[in-house]
C-alpha cells in the first residue's frame, strides 16, 4: 500500500454521483447535424482542410493543426460538409467561433484506420506525432493537447506518471464508468504512456468513492507494474497540483510545470483516447459524457460524437426544459453555464448538468464578510481568500499579486464554504483579467517608449552627422576660396556669370523641346515597365503562384501610370499646337498645369459622397492588401515577434477602418 499525503483545505460537497451510474454507457447515436468548432482546446485553432459540399468519411481530417500547441479535427461520422461558419459554442463568454458543420449521411463509413498494436516498434517521437494527429487533447479540464503535455524537455527526469482518475467534482461519472467498463483499455493506454515517458512509477490515482472502478482497474492491472492508489474523497483532490501532492507529497512550484518535480499527469479519458489512437489508429471523434441533474429523467453516461448538439443529447436522457433554468457544462464547482442549449459537445465536455432550481438554487445576495476564515480553511492553495476579497474590492492589484492571487486555481471551495454567500471566485477571476490587461498595456507602453527613444536617438545622430559634414564642407570651401583668391583673382566670378548666362539662353530656346523629350521618355519607360510586369504576371499565373494578386495590382498600377504619361504628352503637344496657333507665350504651359490641377480639385469636390466613400474604401483595401502581404512575408521569414504583432494590429485596424468606410458608403448610398 503506497503512502498518500494530504493537502491543505478542501471541502465535502454532496457527491450526487449515484444517479448517473445505474446503467452502462449508452451510445448516443448520430444526430441530424454535427458542429465541430475549430478551437476546442488551449492553443491555436485548427485550419480548415475541407470545402463546402465535400463528402467526408468518419475519421477524415477536416481541419489541420496550426502551430505546436494545436491538434487537428476529424469528421466524427461520414457525411457532407454543410457549412463553414461562425456558430455559438460552449464557452463562458458566449461568443461565436468558426465551426465546420457536417450533415451525416447515416452510413458511418470509416476511413481506413491503421493501428499499431505493437507500439514498441515505434519510437517516442513517432508515437507523439501519432497522438497529435489523432487530435487527442486533455479531456478533463482546459483541453491541453496531450502530445504537448507528453513532450518532456530532454534531460528532465520523470519519476512518476500519474493517471488522474480522481474525478472529484460532484455529479460527474464519465471517468468512473470508463474505469468500470474499460479498465483494460485504460491500463493499455497507461502502458503506452509509460513507454513514452519512461517513469519509475506509474500510478492511477482514484478517490475512494469509486470502489467498483478501483476493483476493475486493479484486476486489469495485475502484473503490469501499474499501481492503483486510492485515497479519501475530498474536493478538489482531482486538481493536478493537489493530486500530485496527494500521491508524491511534492508541490509543483508556483508558476511551474509538474515535470519540474518529476511528474507527468494524464486524464483517464485522454488515456483511453491515446490507446484508441495508437492501437487502433482511430482519432478522437467521440467521448463519454455524463448527462445528469434533476431536470433529466434518466441521468446516465453516453458515448457521444464530438459536435453533437447538447439539445440532442439532453433529449436522449429525458430532458425537462421547464424544470431547468441553467445548463452547466462540467460540474457544479468549476463548470460554466452554456449560453444556449444548441451548442455542440466538445472534447472537454465531461458532463452536462441540468439542475432544477431546488437542486442548485440561485445564489442569494451576498452579505458582509465576517472574516470567519472558513474560506481560508477550505482553500487548497493555502491562500487567504478573505484578504484577497478585501483587496479585490478595493482594486489593490499589487496587494493581490503579493498575496499570490495567481496561485488560485478557481476551484470554488472558498465560495462554497462562505457563509455570507460572497462570490469570491468571481472577484478573483475579474481581478486576474484586470491585472493581465494592465500588464499587457504596460508592456505595450514600454515597447512604444523604447521605440520612441531609439528613433529620437537615430534622428539626433543623423543630425549630428549632417552638422559635421556641413562644417567640413564649409571649412573646405573657405580653404578653396583662400587658395583661389590668391591664384586667379577675378576669373572665377567672371566664369560663373558667363556660365549662368549661357544656361539661361539655352533654357529659353530649348525649354519646350526638353519638356517634350521628358514626357516622351516617361511614356516609353512606362510602356517598358508594363511589358515586363505583364510578362511576370503571366508566368506567375502559369505557375499558380501566390503572388498573382500582388502582381496583378502591380500591372494595373503601371498601366495607370502609362495612361497618365500618355495623357500628359498629348496635353503638352496640344498646348504647343495651341500655343503656335494662338501665339501664346510658352510660359502658359505652367498656367495650364495649374488650371488642370484646379479642375481636378473641382472634379473631386463635385464627387458625390458615395463616390468619395467608394474611392476611400478602394484605397483602404489596397493598403490592407499590402499590409497583409508584408505580414505574410514577415511570418514566412520568421521576423521578430514585435514586428509581426505590430503588423497584425495594423491589419486589424485597417479592417476596422474598412468596415467603417463600408458603413459610410452604405450610409452615403442610402442617402
Amino acid at each position, binding site marked *: 500500500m503506497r503512502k498518500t499525503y494530504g493537502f491543505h483545505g478542501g471541502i465535502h460537497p454532496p457527491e450526487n454521483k449515484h444517479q448517473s451510474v445505474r446503467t452502462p454507457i449508452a451510445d448516443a447515436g448520430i444526430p441530424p447535424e454535427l458542429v465541430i468548432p475549430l478551437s476546442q482546446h488551449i492553443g491555436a485553432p485548427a485550419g480548415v482542410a475541407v470545402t463546402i459540399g465535400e463528402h467526408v468519411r468518419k475519421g477524415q481530417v477536416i481541419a489541420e493543426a496550426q502551430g505546436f500547441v494545436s491538434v487537428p479535427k476529424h469528421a466524427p461520422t461520414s457525411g457532407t460538409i454543410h457549412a463553414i461558419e461562425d456558430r455559438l459554442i460552449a464557452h463562458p463568454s458566449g461568443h461565436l467561433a468558426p465551426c465546420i458543420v457536417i450533415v451525416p449521411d447515416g452510413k458511418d463509413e470509416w476511413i481506413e484506420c491503421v493501428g499499431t498494436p505493437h507500439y514498441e516498434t515505434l519510437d517516442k517521437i513517432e508515437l507523439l506525432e501519432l497522438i497529435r494527429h489523432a487530435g487527442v487533447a486533455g479531456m478533463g479540464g482546459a483541453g491541453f493537447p496531450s502530445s504537448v503535455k507528453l513532450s518532456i524537455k530532454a534531460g528532465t527526469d520523470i519519476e512518476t506518471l500519474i493517471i488522474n482518475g480522481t474525478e472529484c467534482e460532484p455529479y460527474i461519472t464519465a471517468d468512473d464508468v470508463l474505469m468500470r467498463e474499460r479498465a483494460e483499455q485504460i491500463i493499455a493506454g497507461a502502458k503506452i504512456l509509460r513507454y513514452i515517458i519512461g517513469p519509475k512509477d506509474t500510478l492511477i490515482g482514484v478517490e475512494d468513492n469509486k470502489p467498483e472502478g478501483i476493483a476493475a482497474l486493479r484486476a486489469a492491472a495485475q502484473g503490469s507494474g501499474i499501481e492503483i492508489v486510492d485515497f479519501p474523497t475530498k474536493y478538489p483532490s482531482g486538481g493536478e497540483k493537489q493530486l500530485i501532492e496527494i500521491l508524491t507529497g511534492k508541490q509543483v512550484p508556483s508558476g511551474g510545470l509538474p515535470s519540474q518535480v518529476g511528474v507527468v499527469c494524464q486524464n483517464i479519458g485522454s488515456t483511453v483516447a491515446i490507446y484508441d489512437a495508437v492501437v487502433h489508429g482511430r482519432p478522437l471523434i467521440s467521448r463519454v459524457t455524463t448527462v445528469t441533474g434533476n431536470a433529466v429523467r434518466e441521468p446516465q453516461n453516453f458515448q457521444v460524437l464530438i459536435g453533437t448538439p447538447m439539445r440532442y443529447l439532453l433529449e436522449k436522457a429525458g430532458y425537462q426544459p421547464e424544470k431547468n433554468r441553467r445548463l452547466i457544462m462540467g460540474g457544479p464547482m*468549476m463548470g460554466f*453555464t452554456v449560453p444556449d442549449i444548441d451548442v455542440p459537445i466538445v472534447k472537454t465536455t465531461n458532463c452536462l448538468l441540468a439542475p432544477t432550481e431546488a437542486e442548485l438554487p440561485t445564489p442569494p445576495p451576498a*452579505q458582509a464578510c*465576517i472574516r470567519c*476564515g472558513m474560506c481560508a480553511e477550505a482553500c487548497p492553495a493555502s491562500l487567504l481568500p478573505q484578504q484577497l476579497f478585501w483587496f479585490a474590492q478595493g482594486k489593490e492589484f499589487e496587494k493581490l499579486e503579493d498575496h499570490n492571487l495567481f496561485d488560485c486555481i478557481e476551484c*470554488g471551495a472558498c465560495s462554497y464554504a462562505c457563509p455570507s454567500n460572497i462570490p469570491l*471566485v468571481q472577484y478573483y*477571476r475579474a481581478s486576474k483579467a484586470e491585472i493581465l490587461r494592465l500588464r499587457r498595456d504596460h508592456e505595450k507602453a514600454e515597447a512604444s517608449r523604447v521605440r520612441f527613444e531609439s528613433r529620437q536617438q537615430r534622428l539626433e545622430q543623423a543630425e549630428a552627422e549632417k552638422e559635421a559634414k556641413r562644417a567640413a564642407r564649409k571649412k573646405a570651401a573657405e580653404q578653396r576660396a583662400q587658395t583661389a583668391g590668391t591664384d586667379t583673382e577675378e576669373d572665377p566670378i567672371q566664369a560663373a556669370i558667363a556660365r549662368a548666362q549661357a544656361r539661361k539662353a539655352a533654357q529659353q530656346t530649348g525649354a519646350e523641346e526638353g519638356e517634350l523629350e521628358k514626357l516622351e521618355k516617361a511614356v516609353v519607360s512606362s510602356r517598358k515597365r508594363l511589358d515586363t510586369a505583364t510578362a511576370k504576371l503571366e508566368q506567375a499565373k502559369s505557375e499558380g503562384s501566390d503572388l498573382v494578386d500582388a502582381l496583378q495590382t502591380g500591372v494595373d498600377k503601371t498601366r495607370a501610370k502609362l495612361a497618365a504619361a500618355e495623357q500628359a504628352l498629348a496635353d503638352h503637344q496640344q498646348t504647343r499646337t495651341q500655343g503656335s496657333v494662338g501665339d501664346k507665350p510658352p510660359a502658359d504651359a505652367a498656367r495650364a498645369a495649374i488650371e488642370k490641377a484646379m479642375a481636378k480639385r473641382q472634379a473631386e469636390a463635385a464627387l458625390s459622397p458615395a463616390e468619395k466613400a467608394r474611392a476611400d474604401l478602394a484605397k483602404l483595401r489596397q493598403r490592407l492588401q499590402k499590409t497583409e502581404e508584408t505580414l505574410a512575408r514577415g511570418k514566412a521569414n520568421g521576423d521578430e515577434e514585435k514586428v509581426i504583432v505590430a503588423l497584425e494590429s495594423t491589419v486589424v485596424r485597417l479592417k476596422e477602418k474598412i468596415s467603417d468606410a463600408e458603413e459610410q458608403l452604405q450610409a452615403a448610398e442610402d442617402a
Partner: protein
Amino acid sequence: MALMRLTSPHAHGPMSTQRVMQYVLLATVPGIIVLTYFFGFGTLVNIVWGCIVAVACESLALKLRRRPLGFYLKDCSALVTAFLLCIALPPYSPWWLIAVGIASAILLAKQLYGGLGYNPFNPAMAGYVILLISFPVQMTSWAPPLGTAGDPPGVWQALQACFSPGLYDGVTMATPLDVLKQNNSLLIEDLWLQNPQFGTFGGLGWEWVNLAFLAGGAWLLYQRIFTWHAPVAMLASLSLLSAIFYDGGSSASGGSPLFHLFSGATMFGAFFIVTDPVTSAVSLRGRLIYGALIGVLVYVIRVRGNYPDAIAFAVLIMNFAAPFIDYYTQPRTYGHSGNRGGK
C-alpha cells in the same frame, strides 16, 4: 426561455452567516441557565431588555444609512452583541445602564464603522468598557451567588431592579476575583476558608457558570463555527502564567490555574469573545498568537491591574493588534517556499 448565465461554483455549502449567529446564541443557553440558577433572573431581564434596545439601535442605524432593514436584521448579529454584553453585565443592572451599553456597542463600535464585518473592535466588549469606565460603581456590583445571602431575587424583583432602580435595594457581594485582589495578608488556603464566595475549585457558582460556557463553546467547536486555536491558546497561556506565579499559595499568590480558568468570565471570554471572527486574527498561526497574548493580558490585568477581571480590556487591546498579527502570519501558499509573512 433563455438560460441563466452564472459563474462557478454553482453549488453552495450549508453554512450561512445567519446560521453562524444563531448557533452562537444557542451555545450561550447553558451558561445563561446556570447564571440564572445561581444569581437569579437578573441576567435574563438584562438580555430581554438588551435585545429590544439592540434591534432598535440597529434599525435606526440602518434607516439612517438607507439600508434594507429585513436583509440586515436577519443576520442576527445585533442579537449576538446584545446577548454577549448582557451576559457580561452584572445582573439587576438598571435599564439605562444596559441601554447606554448596547447603544455604544451597536452605534459607536459597529455601525459607525460600517456595520457587520467592518468593525475593528468587538462591539460587546467596547460597550462593556465604555460602561466600566463611565459607571464603575454599577458595573462592579455583582449579586451574591446562591447559598451565601439567602434566596436570589425572583422575576418581579428582577424587573423592578431593572426598570425602577430606585425602589430596589439589592444585596451585592464582592466576587471571588475581587476578594483575591484585595487580599494581601492571607494564604490562599485561609482565604478560601474565610470567604463564602469560593467554591470547590473556582468561585462559588462561577465554577459552574464557566463549565456551562465551556460546554457551549465545545459544541460550537464541534459544529466548526470557529477553530480551536484562539481559545485554547488563551486558556493555555493563562494557565501557564498562573502556574508560574502561583507561588505555593502564599499571600502574594496570583491564584491557582484552576481558579483562574473557572472564575470570572474566563470560559465565556475564551469561547464567545476571543472567537469573534470579525475582530480577531484570521490565519491559524495568527489565532494562536492572538489567543495566547489575550491570556497573558488577562492574567497581568487581573493580578497587577486596577480591575478585578480583564477579558474586555485584553480583547480590545488585541483587536488593535489583529491586522498586524495577520500580516506577519500569512500561510505558505501552495508551491511557494517559506512563509511569506512580513514581506
